[in-house]
């Protein structure tokens, strides 16, 4: 399907917005939106291959910290940033023979569960492993959001830059439930993503036509759901589970039919000419459009959770734009000064890219402020440092206003302590789900509940 998708009609319920005006200037209109200003949003943003632990900061003071070279792009935003330094993912608490390798487990850190059987080779081991056995935090949080807010059509958006193929080394979102392997395939073409999510901005249809379409779509999905239920009774249990996933997807579709969006900021975007999203040198442009899509999705209240990935884990992207000719993963495994120089160069570039997301959120009105005020961006990496595959010394950066939930302009030193899964439980609390005391495999948690240290 080519953009614009005039023939695809994503249907709104009665009273929805159907304006098709391009121009970014509209997005900067400061008119008050009709939606609830207390809405909370979260973005998990992934970078690959680890960085250089000792080069993150040149001063580790809590308040007077000094950002290292590759984090300097964040300096102008420090008043809304919280740095978690040397946070442990606690993977060593899983017995060795139950673990995948660090890349595989690190890349699924948002889903801190044990792994199932499969055929992917494990690093350094004469065995294979499958996908993780449980949902990722973005999926689980999104699940809670749509359960409490039926008007929100999408549980989450999952986006990845580069890589058309999908496998254990580049899938960070998982649907679970606990005990089941269900990797969630991300969107990788931003133009297709935009067309899929926002076709409703171009319907040009009268209300009666919309309602007629809506009624028929519901009937179609009812029929499909009924066929799935009937088929489930006739097949083996493994197939029944997969059909149940399909049935859940149909229920998700049904929910999208009931979408309304009264937000004044829910306006069409001008994305510019289409380009091939997959060559290495497209990565910045692709990320930029995904950031715009995420901001618009928030503005239209299509979702409140985004899982964005700069690449898959073990990314071999060649950053020719930086004058680099070797793959990122290969560089990350080298321990000499020159290699670390390249690692710092790459990460500085990616952090500069992250600030494009900040600017999109800052530029999008939301109530009396902007989306930045109501969003937490949780930056994470599969590893602490690439050459050692460390997972005890991770850097996590929490950015955004987040309704003032998290501490600001501070560096918290964990000294290889803490637990990443407990941070994820804290994210549930931030989003309003305070009944969650732990998320994932209990062995990956310290058992003390969410991390009060990070909360303001």
């Amino acid at each position: 399907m080519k953009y614009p998708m005039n023939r695809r009609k994503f249907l709104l319920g009665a009273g929805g917005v159907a304006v098709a005006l391009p121009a970014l200037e509209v997005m900067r209109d400061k008119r008050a939106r009709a939606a609830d200003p207390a809405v909370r949003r979260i973005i998990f943003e992934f970078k690959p291959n680890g960085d250089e632990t000792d080069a993150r900061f040149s001063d580790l003071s809590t308040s007077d910290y000094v950002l290292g070279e590759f984090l300097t792009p964040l300096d102008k935003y420090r008043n809304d940033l919280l740095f978690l330094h040397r946070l442990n993912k606690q993977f060593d608490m899983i017995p060795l023979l139950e673990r995948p390798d660090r890349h595989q487990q690190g890349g699924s850190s948002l889903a801190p569960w044990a792994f199932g059987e499969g055929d992917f080779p494990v690093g350094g081991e004469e065995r294979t492993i499958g996908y993780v056995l449980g949902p990722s935090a973005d999926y689980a949080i999104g699940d809670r959001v749509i359960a409490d807010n039926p008007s929100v059509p999408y549980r989450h958006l999952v986006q990845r830059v580069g890589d058309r193929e999908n496998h254990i080394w580049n899938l960070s979102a998982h649907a679970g439930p606990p005990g089941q392997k269900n990797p969630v395939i991300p969107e990788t073409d931003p133009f297709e993503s935009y067309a899929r999510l926002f076709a409703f901005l171009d319907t040009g249809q009268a209300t009666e036509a919309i309602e007629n379409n809506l009624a028929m779509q519901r009937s179609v999905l009812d029929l499909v759901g009924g066929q799935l239920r009937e088929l489930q009774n006739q097949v083996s249990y493994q197939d029944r589970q997969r059909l149940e996933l399909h049935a859940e997807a149909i229920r998700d579709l049904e929910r999208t039919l009931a979408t309304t969006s009264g937000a004044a900021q829910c306006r069409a975007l001008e994305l510019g000419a289409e380009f091939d999203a997959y060559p290495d040198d497209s990565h910045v442009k692709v990320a930029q459009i995904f950031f715009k899509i995420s901001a618009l999705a928030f503005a239209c209240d299509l979702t409140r959770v985004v899982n964005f990935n700069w690449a898959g884990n073990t990314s071999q992207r060649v950053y020719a734009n930086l004058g680099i000719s070797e793959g990122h993963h290969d560089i990350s495994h080298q321990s000499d000064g020159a290699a670390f120089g390249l690692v710092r160069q790459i990460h500085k570039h990616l952090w500069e890219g992250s600030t494009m997301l900040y600017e999109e959120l800052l530029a999008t009105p939301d109530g009396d402020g902007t989306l930045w005020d109501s969003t937490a961006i949780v930056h994470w990496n599969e590893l602490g440092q690439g050459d050692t595959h460390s997972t005890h010394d991770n850097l996590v950066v929490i950015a955004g206003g987040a309704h003032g939930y998290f501490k600001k302009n501070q560096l918290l030193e964990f000294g290889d302590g803490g637990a990443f899964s407990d941070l994820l439980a804290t994210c549930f609390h931030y989003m309003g789900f305070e009944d969650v005391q732990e998320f994932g495999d209990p062995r990956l948690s310290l058992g003390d509940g969410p991390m009060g240290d990070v909360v303001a």
Partner: protein
Amino acid sequence: MPSNKHRLAWASVLATSAFLGSVACGSSSEAPAVQANELPEGPWLDGADPKQVLATSFCASPQPGDSPLRRLSNLEYKNTLLSLGFTGELVESAVLALPSEPESLGFRNGASALTVTSLMAQNYEGVAEDLSTDYTFSCDSAEESACADTMIAEVGAKTHRRPLTDAEKAAYRGIYDQATEFFDHDESLGWVMRSMLQSPHFLYRVEIPDPSAVSPVTGYEMANRLSYMLWQAPPDDALRTLVQAGQLETKEQVLEQALRMLGDPRAESVLDFFRQWLDLDELHEVERDATLYPSVSGQLASLFKAETESFLLHLLRQSGASYRDLLGAEYTFVNAELAEHYGHSAVEGDAFEMVEVPGRHGILTQGMLAAQDGPTRTSIVRRGLKIRTDFLCQTVPAPPDTVDLTLDGLGKDLTQAQRLRQHREDVSCAKCHTRMDPLGQVFEGFDAVGRARSVDEYGNAIVTDGEVTDSIDADGPVTDVADLADRLAGSVEAQQCYLVQNLRYYLGREVSAQDLCTQAQLTQYWRDRELSLTELLVGLTQTDAFLYKAQRVDAPGATGAPGSGGDQGGEP
């Protein structure tokens, strides 16, 4: 994965057995007798005598292994839409938007990985909407209601790939009737089509298992198996007619159709197996440093792909072309542009033609090898890994934590191979690299853009000596890639690997101990036909895994569950 202990045990069997030219040493003698109920440890046949396996009590009754519900792959989905009469351009653009299927066992059509998530459901919904808009159906009857019934019955039979039940017809009729409240006749038929295109009976190749026993695959289910295996598309009218006449029930009838279908141009779809096995579909990602490879065409990936596909089609069109030809043919296919790239001058035009190029020896010497290399140089490790994992079907661990991938600095004046040799002096590295590097070494006579060479990127003289190790019957030094190719062509282990890869792809799942009978059946069939590439496909349609489906299992560990330890007679 087969244990090394198991492999070593069967190595002694192979050393004294005489399979079809497969063993280079040892006196010819029959394999030691296998007791009636003694099966190989599995999951693969390896060097076991297929006749003796088939003589066991386990194989006395059909053993189909797992029969998972299979969602259409993106390619099958596209071909199925085309078969319904939608225009190519419309279908191509629709399918282009679908996310790539998750990889499993090296292929993208594994049943367990092909689920319908929210993103897929919305994509399918969007495709259905696009294709059903402006939908029309020509009826003999001028009466719209009767026309609707005709459309539902005829189109429904195609989308469901079997006749609809009365209940299904009534359900789709309900969609039509409701739609006519708001829309005209054609638009209402469009809503029916939209429903059918989202039906699980369209999106999956539905086979209903018998709750009480292993059962034969017959009728429409067999027609679907044949057509999606050999054409990646739904059954044609000929198959449907046979089903309606009850003439697709026996093994012989299946064989007859397999032969017919392999002779049809649509059988070119079997190239998809090779595209995935040989990473042809990853060639588009090949990027090379422009400074080191300044004159390389931007079309190189397409040229390499066309080279190998032309070569494969040439082989597949000859019933006698064998696995040995796949690895050892001393020709390739080039057009003028690729010929010039290879330094070969006798070809003109855009069409690919067969040429004998010195040094070219089967698929291992074709440009598709470039999918394993990096932007600035060849990768001995990845080339060797490809052979180890996809031609010998062995597992090589991924790099361990703290691995240092630095080869530079181990000796600037050394070749990549020499630096790797030093690297292997580290015991922790040697464990895996002794299994990859000596295999990858033999390819050094070709650079990272597929050209023959005598010096590497730094001007060092190329050495192609390598070695096959840790195999059942292919161990020993090899002098170059042609030598390696011939060694693999004659290796029972490599032949079995090729067979297993085909089973993985065409069955859409892993091959387990439950499939030992299928493996034995197929191995014997294939050997009896001199390892013919096309006869392997025909033989696959004659196996238990293809002709039968597993009994329904209602819960883990229940009777009949594969590997559950259930009470099926003769289970290994």
